[in-house]
């Protein structure tokens, strides 16, 4: 990590001008100022690096504003003896929070639920038939929880999988939006998540334009879902490009 510290952090945001919207957004009244002064449709700057852990077969570190996540991949290695024979590989996901990740100590969300969501988002992207009878372990640690933890964990995990050389159809990019009153805010921070009326998270394979997971909470009308999905997919494709360039960068530095 230290050797690459000099590199400029890659940032992204689906800039309003690039939003090729052919119809005007439904929600125009602005009655909310975001705590970190961003525009509603502006993502936090993303910092991504691969190779954070030496012992792992692949690893990645991601920092989106205050949300800091580290993911290590171990394997493919032999499945546990108790497991039945399987002609496709297994994916084992585990997300944990550090005790100091939240403002109140040890007040983290349900790990099991997040782990199963991570599994559901990744399994569609990985070519499981390339490593039969074996298991790939995905261990994610949320160092600091600053909102949007799950999408950051998912994006970081797919980067780590690529770093480990696990065959995938495409990288998985994840973005969520919160609905606050009439407004849709992308990439919400913790404060916004605590007051949200609803949320929508998309994980997708940007170059295949395929959605591997979509979760919606709260009450949504169909046009609002349309707008939120469009916004997320646009942001996902931009995040995908940054993830790709991060991988290319690390590959070129290792060759030198």
């Amino acid at each position, binding site marked *: 990590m230290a050797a690459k510290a000099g590199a400029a952090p890659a940032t992204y945001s689906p800039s309003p001008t690039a939003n090729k919207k052919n119809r005007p957004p439904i929600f125009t009244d602005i009655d909310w100022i975001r705590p970190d002064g961003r525009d509603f449709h502006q993502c936090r700057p993303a910092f991504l690096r691969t190779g954070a852990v030496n012992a792992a077969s692949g690893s990645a570190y991601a920092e989106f504003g205050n949300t800091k996540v580290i993911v290590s991949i171990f394997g493919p290695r032999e499945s546990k003896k108790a497991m039945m024979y399987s002609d496709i590989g297994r994916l084992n996901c585990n997300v944990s929070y550090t005790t100091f990740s939240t403002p109140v100590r040890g007040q983290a969300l*349900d790990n099991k639920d997040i782990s199963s969501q991570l599994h559901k988002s990744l399994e*569609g992207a990985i070519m499981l038939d390339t490593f039969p009878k074996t298991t790939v372990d995905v261990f994610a640690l949320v160092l600091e929880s600053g909102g949007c933890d799950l999408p950051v964990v998912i994006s970081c995990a797919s980067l780590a999988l690529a770093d480990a050389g696990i065959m995938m159809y495409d990288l998985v990019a994840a973005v969520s939006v919160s609905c606050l009153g009439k407004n849709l805010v992308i990439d919400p921070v913790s404060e916004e998540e605590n007051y949200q009326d*609803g949320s929508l998270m998309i994980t997708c394979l940007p170059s295949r*334009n*395929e*959605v591997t997971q*979509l979760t919606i909470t*709260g009450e*949504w009308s169909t046009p609002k879902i349309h707008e939120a999905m469009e916004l997320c997919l646009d942001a996902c494709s931009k995040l995908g490009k940054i993830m790709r360039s991060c991988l290319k960068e690390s590959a070129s530095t290792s060759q030198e």
Partner: protein
Amino acid sequence: MVGLSVGEKHFIQGGIAQDLRTDGRKRLTYRPIFVETGVIAQANGSARVKFGGTEVIASVKAELGRPSSSAPDKGKVSIFVDCSPTAAPQFEGRGGEELSMELSAALRQCLLGGKSGAGAGINLSSLSIVDGKVCWDLYIDGLVISMDGNVLDALGAAIKAALSNTGIPKVNIASASTPDEQPEVDVSDEEFLQFDTTALPVIVTLTKVGRHYIVDATSEEESQMSSAVSISVNRQGLICGLTKRGGAGLDPSVILDMISVAKHVSEQLMNKLDSEIAAAEAAMEEDS
């Protein structure tokens, strides 16, 4: 796990492609729905729901509790689902845990709305008794008794029926209490308040087999699915929650199409369920 031969798999897939499923249904037809309410005497409300071979029980228990400091004017609701080993041998011991957790999480997401409480099927403010002091804790427990596909929709329907059947005891608050003290409450065992269930959504799971999607899949059909999307829709036709299962990815346009199909199907299911629940309530009153 369903063991199917290659021929049977082709038969199921081919049938779905031709809009004639193995049990003679069309793609968007439900199995016969059976509802019975008031099946558990100890609970405040309960219901048993059958979707063909899938059978589930939901019970609602209300207990007095203290509201959390972050939301002093609201009650609390917890939803848990248990998968009994009587439904399938693999649920023995800890085997059912993963499915139980997944189902509970999906139900919580569909029924409880966003963090701010907007769009929730269960109005948490109606469970408050004294702000910051006393509230109702609603425990909703689901039990899967027999499993033949489409468990989530059945559980959603059972919870809806159980809540329609729920009577929350009337509470009288002793007026003379200082602001610091915990007020004394008197729970009536004769007067009950009917729980308002008009905002509760129904859950429609669309299972994608091949290029088509079906509702109310049996476990044989579920074994052939590429992915399934569970959408909960309320009476106003608004989406209250959505989750996806299964590995294969979907095109965004397919998801939007599924949402519009689910909205259409949910109307019929909502009406069907309402009439079944009303009939079950009437039958229960006749018995007593």
